[in-house]
């Protein structure tokens, strides 16, 4: 491995001072002169016709500046995938879930806007509604969208190899059904935005988003504007986890209201509205049949999955696809058949959440693999190691494991948790379990059909040579991406991190598809690295001309110019530099030639030095020539061991310790990698133990707040031993790949397997509440 000065260290995040001092501006901290406040009118019914809307009283209220509905504003259909543009900003004739959007009001203050909402009269005719997969699939069920019979929003059917033939060669075949529950991502900062038109008719939207680029495109389409006349700026963001990865009703409503009133319009969701908008984890039902030989060789998986998706498609096509495809690895599985169905229901739409599509599937299969290992009389770790893929392997569905430190991850947690000393040796009520998982480092395609670069970046050197400006439209949402890109730029340029000034999250800075699919470190990282290298090459080219030596004989390292073939006389350059700075007290003296001097000399020769970079996944040259790279350019992977105590009287689970190893290719910022690993464990524990969005019989959410939506607190968080594994990904910048989502994959099944080890009963439904564990214990006692 090459030696580096900046990356692979524990850098302090560049946003730490602003956040620690309270200077960081989130959307709710921002205001514009003369701004109006916007609010949404949302449906109280799960399914109803809109017979009439009377907005006259609301419009007459003093202080109200605009009331908009689908009946006085043009509605352009939009969505995530162009194949499923099934939403409009406001419902015209029908609402499809409690919280569906009917109207918006802009007024001089929030109180007036809320008062106006109460004056809007909507005449609804309630319709039969469907809330479950089974009900929605009935032949005579009410149809949410006419085009999609039996409420099947999307389906995927794939077979790789020949599962039927493979099962004939198996010694053991078992089938299990597993369910998770619908979730909320429970980020700290609810969605919010401020929309403002300038006097030239250009729109600027500040928004708490993960994807400024996609919001820009959707705004342009829905408002009928050129993309170049729409600018989206992302301020500091308090988390997203996938839910903020597409345009939302606020962004579109505020922009329409701003255009109508000529005033800036600010809108926010309250916490209940965050739940009503949804777009978080689906409710999945997995049925898996896995066959193995008696020596433990995995032979085939037959997998059927149904997803309860809510009223609109959102990311659903991708969700149902990933629920199947991400079981292609990390084990050598030669035969896999998948039938997936995403179903519309009269509930808020589900979407993408950390570990998109793969988390529940991984939990189901990793638990089943443990059961198979037990039936074969094999240790679960040995069973996994036997079947584990290695670097260079390709899955049956053509996921290319260009680097894969999965074996190293398993061995690290096995040894770190002292598995061999504990497994099978713990008393009743104590348990230990392990699981594995992996995830993509970005997707092969953008959401809309395009040959677009997935990201661009610009590096510009200041005229004094002292600062390297980096501009990227990527989205820092709390995960530390700005710091990672600053580190990559510093390393590629050859300067200390302190010389980097990075700005991001603004569509004026270029194209970046945003923070989702664990894509930014690899993809934006490539673009930033390329931009810095291009600027660096220009500086060295000018130096080569000035010093009359080849550029290849020089290097830039840690802010200084290195001459690789011995000392070079550069005092004439230094004298020229110093004479431009009479009176300055920090001019170079007897130190080596500095980057600042070289960069200034380059500016004097060529003007502003600018480097640009870009990235999109490469194309395949094999079976599907011309197609995108495949599911992803690279895959991060994890293994975890969870240790639990279970109260055999109450069913209460305490997670005592987690040992977590993740292969991130090569760590850019080691502290951030560990932060992502710990955050993933936290979210996984929430899904495993507590989290469920609950509804009444009318489709109303019962726990749409952070008091009743149970999730872990700091007090529930166990010690987590994080182990970074580095496999050096050939397709990643400096060898880096993802950590943000692969690290959540093993958590839930490791908990499931540990709980089984503790109590001797398998539970196939999440979350593992005290009640569910208690009744599982009671049923076991009855048997």
């Amino acid at each position: 491995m090459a030696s580096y000065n900046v990356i692979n260290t524990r850098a302090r995040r560049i946003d730490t001072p602003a956040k620690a001092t309270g200077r960081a501006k989130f959307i709710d901290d921002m205001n514009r002169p003369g701004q109006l406040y916007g609010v949404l009118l949302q449906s109280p019914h799960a399914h109803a016709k809109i017979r009439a809307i009377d907005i006259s009283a609301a419009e007459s209220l003093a202080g109200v500046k605009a009331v908009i509905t689908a009946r006085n504003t043009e509605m352009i259909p939009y969505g995530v995938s162009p194949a499923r543009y099934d939403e409009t900003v406001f419902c015209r004739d029908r609402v499809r879930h409690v919280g569906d959007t009917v109207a918006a009001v802009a007024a001089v203050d929030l109180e007036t806007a809320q008062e106006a909402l109460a004056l809007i009269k909507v005449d609804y005719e309630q319709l039969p509604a469907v809330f479950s997969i089974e009900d929605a699939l009935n032949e005579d069920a009410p149809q949410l969208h006419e085009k999609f019979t039996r409420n099947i929003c999307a389906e995927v059917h794939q077979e790789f190899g020949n599962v039927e033939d493979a099962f004939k060669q198996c010694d053991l075949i078992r089938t299990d059904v597993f369910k998770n529950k619908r979730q909320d991502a429970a980020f700290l900062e609810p969605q919010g935005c401020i929309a403002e038109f300038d006097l030239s008719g250009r729109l600027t939207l500040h928004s708490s988003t993960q994807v400024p680029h996609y919001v820009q495109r959707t705004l342009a389409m829905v408002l009928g504007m050129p993309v170049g006349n729409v600018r989206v700026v992302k301020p500091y963001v308090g988390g997203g986890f996938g839910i903020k990865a597409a345009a939302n009703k606020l962004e579109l409503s505020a922009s329409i209201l701003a255009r109508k009133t000529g005033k800036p319009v600010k809108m926010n969701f309250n916490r209940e509205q965050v739940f009503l908008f949804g777009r978080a984890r689906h409710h999945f039902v997995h049925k898996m049949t896995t066959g193995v030989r008696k020596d433990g060789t995995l032979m085939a998986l037959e997998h059927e999955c149904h997803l309860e998706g809510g009223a609109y498609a959102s990311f659903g096509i991708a969700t149902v696809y990933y629920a199947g495809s991400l079981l292609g690895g990390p084990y050598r599985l030669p035969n896999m058949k998948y039938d997936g169905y995403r179903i519309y229901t009269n509930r808020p739409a589900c979407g993408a959440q950390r570990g998109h599509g793969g988390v529940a599937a991984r939990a189901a299969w990793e638990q089943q693999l443990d059961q198979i290992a037990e039936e074969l009389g094999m240790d679960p770790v040995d069973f996994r190691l036997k079947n584990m893929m290695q670097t260079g392997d390709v899955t049956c569905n053509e996921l290319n494991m260009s680097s894969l430190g999965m074996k190293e991850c398993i061995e690290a947690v096995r040894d770190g948790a002292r598995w061999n000393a504990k497994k099978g040796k713990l008393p009743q009520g104590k348990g230990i379990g392990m699981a594995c998982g992996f995830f993509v480092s970005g997707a092969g395609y953008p959401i809309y059909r395009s040959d677009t670069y997935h990201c661009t970046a610009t590096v510009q050197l200041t005229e004094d040579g002292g600062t390297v400006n980096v501009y990227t439209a990527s989205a820092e949402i709390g995960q530390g991406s700005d710091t990672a890109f600053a580190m990559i730029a510093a390393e590629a340029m050859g300067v200390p991190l302190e010389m980097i000034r990075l700005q991001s999250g603004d569509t004026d800075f270029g194209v970046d598809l945003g923070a989702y699919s664990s894509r930014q470190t690899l993809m934006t990282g490539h673009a930033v690295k390329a931009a810095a290298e291009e600027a660096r090459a220009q500086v060295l080219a000018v130096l080569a001309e000035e010093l009359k030596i080849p550029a290849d004989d020089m290097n830039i390292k840690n802010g200084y110019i290195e001459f690789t073939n011995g000392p070079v006389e550069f005092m004439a350059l230094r004298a020229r530099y110093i004479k431009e700075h009479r009176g300055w007290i920090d001019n170079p003296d007897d130190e080596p030639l500095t980057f600042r001097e070289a960069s200034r000399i380059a500016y004097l020769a060529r003007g502003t030095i600018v480097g640009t970079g870009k990235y999109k996944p490469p194309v395949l040259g094999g079976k599907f020539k011309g197609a995108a790279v495949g599911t992803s350019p690279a895959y991060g992977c994890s293994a975890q061991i969870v240790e639990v105590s279970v109260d055999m009287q109450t069913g209460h689970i305490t997670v005592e310790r987690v040992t977590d190893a993740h292969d991130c290719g090569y760590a850019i910022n080691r502290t951030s990698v560990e932060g992502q690993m710990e955050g993933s464990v936290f979210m996984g524990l929430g899904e495993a133990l507590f989290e469920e969005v609950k509804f009444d019989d009318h489709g109303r959410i019962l726990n749409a707040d952070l008091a009743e939506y149970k999730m872990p607190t700091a007090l529930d968080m166990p010690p987590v031993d994080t182990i970074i594994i580095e496999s050096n990904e050939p397709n990643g910048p400096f060898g880096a790949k993802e950590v943000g989502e692969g690290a959540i994959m093993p958590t839930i099944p490791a908990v499931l397997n540990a709980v089984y080890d503790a109590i001797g009963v398998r539970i196939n439904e999440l979350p593992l509440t005290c009640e569910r564990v208690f009744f599982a214990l009671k049923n076991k006692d009855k048997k």
Partner: protein
Amino acid sequence: MEIEINGFRETVPEGATITDLIERFEEQDIDLIVEYNGRFLYAHKWPVTVVCAHDSIEFIHPNFGG
């Protein structure tokens, strides 16, 4: 003959199959979803499904992240 592909009107030869169109429009991908007149079309039916005028086809690459 005119049909609709991914929301746009396209002219294709008479007798073209879905497999022909995948090749013609460079949609090849191991994960490709084909929706034919609003319904999922299994891969084994691609070579034998001959499109007719005014048919609607969606070629979907589901690997778009999230």
